[in-house]
């Protein structure tokens, strides 16, 4: 029977399903009899769901505009064009 400390160490891998079937079986057996670890696993999992559900990416329009402007301004000096005779092409 594995102990609570080992569950704590494996929580993350367990949630990611990144453990061997044998260890998984042992973890689940432990969870069946240990309320403390069950709460720990469930609330950690819930934490990740909350983050995933609420991670909405927005970019302020001015930030996006300033980025494009800067790239436009720098294109000529930064981008090294491929040789025109096509020597670099694979075929």
């Amino acid at each position, binding site marked *: 029977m594995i102990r609570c400390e080992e569950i704590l160490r494996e929580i*993350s891998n367990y949630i990611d399903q990144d453990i061997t079937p044998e260890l998984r079986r042992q973890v689940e057996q432990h969870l069946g009899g240990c309320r403390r670890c069950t709460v720990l696993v469930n609330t950690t999992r819930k934490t990740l769901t909350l983050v995933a559900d609420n991670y909405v990416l927005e970019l302020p329009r001015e930030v996006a505009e300033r980025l494009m402007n800067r790239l436009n301004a720098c294109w000529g000096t930064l981008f090294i064009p491929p040789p025109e005779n096509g020597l670099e092409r694979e075929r």
Partner: protein
Amino acid sequence: MRNRIDIVREEPISIAKSAEAEGDAELVRRAQQGEKEAFAMLVCRHEKRVYWIVQGILQNQADAEEVLQESFLKALKHIRGFRGEARFSTWLIQIAINEARMRQRKYRPGLYDSLDEERDDPSGFRPRELADWRANPEEAMAKEEMRLLLQQAIHSLPKIYREVFLLRDAERLSNQETAGALGISISATKTRLLRARLMMREFLAPHFKLSWRERLLARVKRRGRPRMGGHHDPL
């Protein structure tokens, strides 16, 4: 520690994710030929995540915007050297993280490294918040409030844990991609991720745990009716 495994296991890449990568590959090819619009498309596709990753690391909007620009300028400069060994997004994130770190060192030296690096051992971490949470924490607060709280939680993590958490659990990169972008081993990624997740949980717990009354009700439900004679309602 006999059971500890450390094999590299590729996580399944979702169809959407690989379709995105495929589109990127074509755009990269065109950008490499000098097609400005293709590069602009790549920018549109990835500017948000780059901005939020560096914002998450630097926690400062002005710095984040500066690093966002520097990252894409660098990507533009080196786009023709990009050979597609990794996905474009991973390559770009790697550039952005390096830029963010450089900026930290330049403008806020001493604030990070020493403080953070030594805490890389999660074995000492003991969760203290052990009460169960309410079934639907989402219902406890407004959407905006929730987002703010989660942001605070992420910002409360020491830098090395924050980076891993942002890439793995917010951006949903694989362990391997996260390790690659941060320049650390996969096992270090997993170790830090564990600690980061536990710390996140610890931060959020006081906001979501059951009230005293709900806990009591839950306990009664688990153990059946209390033995108090004649009392049908335990409260």
